[in-house]
């Protein structure tokens, strides 16, 4: 039994002329780092957890802005390594210093082995209303290959515990196309996930990122590299399973039940503004993209010393902003709203890219639908090709 959540526009998964305002909070700790992971996260460092939470709160408190967030996202790392009360105190700081809209989507990422029904209740209690569970796969061999420490049943248990606790908005994160996965493995994972019926699924093709243990395994020939053709085929299998089960794909790698798209996700793809807090967190406000110092220790020291946590930024000119907005928006399945886009970025933004747009409309990677410009089905899997030309 679920209750409809307010703000349907932000949850429709469509491009937004007014994307709202987001807050991202980064928790850079994990029990164990997965083989494929190149995120800013660290094993151990338990002694820093408390000081890190404290620093985060103080950093939020000194960045007072009166702009209520329409979405808040706690990502990691593994945010659920921290106690619900600790996460709640950070969220309180956000609410007090920045503001959180009444209908805001407030998400926290959870790894299956770190959460049970009590934990979910606790997280609901401190204000989170959406949970993203890192399932990745439901085949033991694949989980092991990825370096995940939880089993398939643990992941299922986590999804069920969330439901039991009364969570109304659940996302399951999946990874496909790893070297350890067969076509049948992927189908088995999809079948079980669809059975569990989360409201939202993110299914990402595994990317071998530089300087990860996986990259070393591939480079030394211990593991075959990922195969783009195989991943493309698995993406089609996912489309088929999710489509049949009533999910809509609203972004390249994201599916949801109607009205359950992730508002925070859509904010990113609509080139919206967001603040980022925590080690290595990224923020974007009006064409200024910035990022924080990566090491938790340095982050804490910066806050303690009263200096900025920012380690770099770039400022985009109008045309670069428009180009970026275009490539981000094209990740959404319904594409960009041309009228809204022109209102936001001016007529020159699209005119300057007319030739490239025409070329890809012609080759069938882009398509027009009503007043929207979007990637075609084939274009979705070749998005880089189109996006590179439109930058």
């Amino acid at each position: 039994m679920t209750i409809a959540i307010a703000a349907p526009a932000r949850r429709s998964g469509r491009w937004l002329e007014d994307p709202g305002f987001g807050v991202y909070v980064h928790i850079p700790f994990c029990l164990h780092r997965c083989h494929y992971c190149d995120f800013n996260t660290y094993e151990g460092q338990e002694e820093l957890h408390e000081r890190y939470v404290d620093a985060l709160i103080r950093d939020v408190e000194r960045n007072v802005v009166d702009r209520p967030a329409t979405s808040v996202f706690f990502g990691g790392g593994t945010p659920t390594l921290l106690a619900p009360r600790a996460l709640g105190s950070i969220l309180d700081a956000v609410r007090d210093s920045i503001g959180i809209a009444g209908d805001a989507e407030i998400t926290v990422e959870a790894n299956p082995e770190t959460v049970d029904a009590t934990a979910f209740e606790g997280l609901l209690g401190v204000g989170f209303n959406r949970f993203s569970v890192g399932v990745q796969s439901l085949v033991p061999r694949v989980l092991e290959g990825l370096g995940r420490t939880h089993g398939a049943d643990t992941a299922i248990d986590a999804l069920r515990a969330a439901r039991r606790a009364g969570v109304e908005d659940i996302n399951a994160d999946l990874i496909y196309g790893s070297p350890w996965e067969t076509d049948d493995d992927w189908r088995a994972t999809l079948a079980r996930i669809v059975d569990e019926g989360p409201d939202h699924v993110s299914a990402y093709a595994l990317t071998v990122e530089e300087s990860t243990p996986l990259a070393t395994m591939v480079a030394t020939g211990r593991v075959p590299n990922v195969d783009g053709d195989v991943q493309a085929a698995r993406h089609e299998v996912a489309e088929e399973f999710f489509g049949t089960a009533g999910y809509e794909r609203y972004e390249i790698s994201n599916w949801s039940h109607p009205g359950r798209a992730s508002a925070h996700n859509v904010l990113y793809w609509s080139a919206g503004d967001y603040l980022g807090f925590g080690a290595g967190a990224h923020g974007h406000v009006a064409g200024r993209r910035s990022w924080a110092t990566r090491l938790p220790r340095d982050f804490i020291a910066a806050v303690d010393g009263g200096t900025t946590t920012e380690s770099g930024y770039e400022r985009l000119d109008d045309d670069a902003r428009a180009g970026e907005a275009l490539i981000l928006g094209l990740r959404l399945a319904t594409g960009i709203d041309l009228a809204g886009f022109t209102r936001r970025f001016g007529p020159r933004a699209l005119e300057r890219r007319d030739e490239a747009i025409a070329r890809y409309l012609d080759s069938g990677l882009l398509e027009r639908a009503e007043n929207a410009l979007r990637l075609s089905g084939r274009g979705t899997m070749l998005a880089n090709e189109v996006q590179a030309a439109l930058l």
Partner: protein
Amino acid sequence: MREQYLDRMDLERERGITIKAAAVRMEYKAGDGETYEVNLIDTPGHVDFGYEVSRSLAACDGVLLLVDAAQGIEAQTLTNLYLAVDAGLEIIPVLNKIDLPAAQPDKYGEELASLIGCEPSDVLRISAKTGEGVPELLETIVASIPEPKGDATAPLRALVFDSTYDSYRGVIAYIRVIDGALTKRQPINFMAAGIDADADEIGVLAPDATPVEELATGEVGYLIAGIKDVSQAKVGDTVTGRDNPAEQPLPGYREPKPMVFAGIYPIEGDDFPLLRDALDKLKLNDTALVFEPESSGALGFGFRCGFLGLLHMEIVRERLEREFDLSLIATAPSVGYEVETTDGIKKVVRNPTDLPEAGQIEEISEPYVSVMVVSPSEYIGTIMQLCQDRRGSLKEMHYLSPERVEIRYHMPLAEIIFDFFDQLKSKTKGYASLDYEPVGLHSANLVRVDVLLNEQPVDAFSTIVHRDRAYDYGKNMTERLRKLIPRQQFDVPIQAAIGSRVIARETVRAKRKDVIAKCYGGDVTRKRKLLERQKEGKKRMKQIGSVEVPQSAFIEALRLDQEVTSP
């Protein structure tokens, strides 16, 4: 003093070859108490420079036939020996490098003796490195080489046997005064080139340049006459005096004739003007190099260059890259084909894309060469097989010794300019040596094979081959390209065709996935940078019709001697 004096260019020392002849004069006090003036000219040994050898020989009264005591007689030894015999020169057989542990002077001395028809004991044994045997050699030179035969009272005739270009002094011509004498500041004329000049400086190399007032009959030296281009003081030309000119030039002059052609292109299109300047500069001391601009749809703007042979081509290419810091791509080498069209017109085709349509061709003739291979006799079968595979016909075979054989084939030059030498070396464990000389044109069943990407011909890959070899070339090239061309949005057929008939086909399958899976924690900057890199990469692609081909694919595809292993 440097260890090696005569091989001037870095490239020569590295490769252990002599590209330009060099000359020195020495004074030698012989055992008979007389002091003799000996002029030594070092000649190139390689077939590509046969004409230079012949001119050097024309400037001499006798030769030292030097054979490596560790390697024995090579094909070049025979070629140069025959040239010396033809020139009627006194020949002194010498085994060099007897200090080497692998030297076999008895064995090779006997071979050399039987080759030139003397006693094994007449073959001198020396080590130029240690000096062993050198005094005996000098005595032999004094005793056997005749004195210069020229006419000191006749008008000046001096033979140019080499020339180099110096950026400060201009052309330095190396000459042998055959008749008369050349004096400093004398007004002179280069007879073949028809150029007037003044002898600003004359001198001898002893071994450093030493100016003199006069070069008398029989003397060897250098001449600087304010000439800015070696093509005006070519090897083989005759220098005479303007005041009392000779009636006839010395015999034997001919224009160098390029045999092998290839397109040379800068990898960076912007470097085209640099390449032109570099070729102009090389041309200043390489009369044999010819080039004219051409353009290729695939490779952009470059030059069709003509070379004396494969070694010459390699040397030019290396000098361009090394001395002028250019990155170059060369098309597969080609020969000059003589084509007679149905309307009776004859033309020479040096670039396969210039070949007329098959329907307009009456006959195509290709240059043939007489190939001489000298090898240990155990490889006879292998060598004959190789030559037969390359359309060769056996002309002659004889044993130089029980273990060494000389085999002579006639075969198309086109068959040897492409990896024949490498094949010969690898099939004979490096023991066989090769030399060849042109023997005219022969008509043959030749076709042009074109390579098409998505139906668009790519000129850089067109080639002229014998009809029987067309399929092999087509299959090899299409397979290589399939591995080298990145997958595109659509299937790309790669075809090899003779006219409109497709003889081989491969397909580069459309890529199915090229998308960034996720955007981690709002890090858009990184995603954009990835796409920017992709965009930059695209800019470096050549567009062949709708197909994007990285420059590297052309380079790799044209390296026909190397396997393609990438994806």
